[in-house]
């Protein structure tokens, strides 16, 4: 990889964004950040990142998923790997069964999940794998 990978973090928790930034920058990745879905989408429009790290629940319960679907449906952005960070796996159930089903009914838009709190090694491993193109589409199980 000749160029420095460009990673976009979208999360409304600034402390988390900063932590992720510190971890990623320690490996010399180029890191950009956005604090909600809309802002994040604009950043992607400006420049397509090599990886998006996305929080599930921001202003709304499914903002992260909504953005992920929006990206997947747009051919221009459909191939950007998405690493989704969630409070923890239980979060899926918290979204409410109806939302959960809605999510499961369509193609899984997310490449990989990572639980909060963010473990630096896990984050780096996941980011590295996704940047290399080892994206695992399909249902996460």
């Amino acid at each position, binding site marked *: 990889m000749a160029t420095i990978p460009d990673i976009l973090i979208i999360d409304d928790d600034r402390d988390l964004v900063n932590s992720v930034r510190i971890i990623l920058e320690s490996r010399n990745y180029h890191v950009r950040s956005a604090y909600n879905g809309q802002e994040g989408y604009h950043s992607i429009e400006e420049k397509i990142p090599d990886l998006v790290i996305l929080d599930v629940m921001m202003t709304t319960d499914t903002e992260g998923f909504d953005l992920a679907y929006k990206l997947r449906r747009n051919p221009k952005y459909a191939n950007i790997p998405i690493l989704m960070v969630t409070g923890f796996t239980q979060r899926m159930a918290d979204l409410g069964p109806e939302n959960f089903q809605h999510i499961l009914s369509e193609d899984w838009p997310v490449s990989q999940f990572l639980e909060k709190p963010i473990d*630096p090694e896990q984050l780096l491993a996941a980011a590295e794998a996704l940047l290399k193109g080892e994206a695992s589409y399909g249902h996460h199980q």
Partner: protein
Amino acid sequence: MDIINDTIKQQIFFRKELRERVYWFIKLRWVAAAIGLVGLAAAHLTGLRLPLGPLVGIVLSIIGYNIVFLLIGRRLLSTRPAGVRPYHIFAHIQISLDIISLLLMIMFTGGLASPLLIFVIFHIVLAGMLLSPVSCFGYTFMVLLALGTLLLIKPEGLLHLETIHIGSHFFFHQLQHPELIISYLIFAMALVVAAYLITSVKVTLRAKGRELLIISKQLDISNTKLLALYEMIKEIGTKTRLQELMDSATHNAARIMGVKACSIKLLDKDKKYLEFASSYGLSQEFVAIDRIEVDKSTINRQIIEGSLYSIGNLDEEDYFQYPNDVRKEGVVSMLCLPLRVGHKTLGVFCVYSGESNYFSARDADFFSLMTDLIALAMEELSQSTAKTWFLNKTAHQLRSPVSAVMSMLYLLTKGYLGPLTAQQQETVTRCEKRLSILRDTINDLLKLASENDESRRQPFHPVDAAAVLQAMTPIYLTQAEQKSLIFEVRAAADLPQVLGQERLLDEIFTNLISNAIKYTPAGGRVLVSLSLESAEKIVFKVEDTGIGIPESDLNRLFAEFFRAENAKSMVEEGTGLGLAIVKEVLDQMNGTIKVASHFGRGTTVTCLIPAQRRHGLS
């Protein structure tokens, strides 16, 4: 509602009665013929001078035509004609022939003096039972006419009538005796009275029968409706979204009330406007009308204030707010009630019919019951939704800072922010540990608080417990390996499914297995098994060779936040909520849990979970 149906049912009812009696007649005739033959033989043996020839002939002819009747009866039975008419004709033929036979026998046994005269009354009674009052009286007068004729003509000259003396003071066979005319008149009176009594009793009975039929039909209808209402309430109780609940309610209500359309209009927050929230059978155009300003709509205001609004024929009412729109929908009559819970009004519930004056007072009562139940279900759902929403928000708010702080602490402990002194490192690690306990506690607490709500709304369905267990096994296998534990999972083949939810089983399995792994020191063994207890129950068992539970603590195991002392000293993490959650979940599934433990040697947890019967009702 169902006049045609009623008539058909009545006809079926009376036809059944007629049919049964017609066959009963045939049976009765065999008995009569047999008695006749025996009587004739007895009369002959006792030396009574009777014209045996003609009498035997008559009895034999009775037997003969009864055979024909039997054949006709069988044919009727197999072809089952639709109307009542064939049975009527059949009854008429039978009664006519019987009366003719009887009159002939009377003629041959002494005319008006004949002891058989009494049987005429029986025949009239039978005719009255089976046929219309007019027919019954018709037969009465024909019989009297025949007997009168018998009295007038000289019987001796005609058929050599023999006199029989049986010691009667009243019956004489001689025409010359005026007493004979008197006895004829008395007999005639008795016969007419008998005909009158039987016909009037029968008319009353029929009227009562009809009333009973109507009542039973009405009971039938209300029973069916109540059952349908029960099913409907059960169905809408499983809905997790208000829109789905209302759609199900309007759809079902229209079906149960037998009407073309139904709608729910909801009041806005300020109670100023009504808006269609759900409808069934109404056009998009109609439903898309602007919200209705309550103050400007007299009718809607009255409904919201609590009165039943019933309109029998829209064409006769001119004050209706949207008359043309409604007529375009084919609505002629309608029924509306407020959706209320206590003093709170949620909106307006209406049913619409294409027939005028469709709704009876009974329908209105039923509709009122239905409306109240729907309102209750709506209110219950919105409260539980509000609670779930609140819990989710709380969960998010509580977890987010903990996650953020932990993520930041990782930066410190993993050296991303520069090296730490040994003391700093230790302190930060302690912070991490305490926070992770806090996070688990928050998660478990919220789970416990929301458990009831979420799963109670979801319907139970057959779940393959072995598959759920299988799916989670790899995670625990890894954990056990890391702790150098032997971890075994055994699931009996061909286990019946249990009635519940995957999520609930997951909760039970996860909590119990992770406890066992957590509290079993290295080198120990954890055995997880699923087996069949009986046709109705499966057993989920987790056995470990762990630290065990002190006997004094066994009875407090399921209390929230309880952790045994030895557990605390072995593993710091632990919220004391895991077993409380398992217990809660098992309660919901009608299961039980039992814990047996030897302090220092191990614990066995046994759960009995109700299974779905394989050959029972599905």
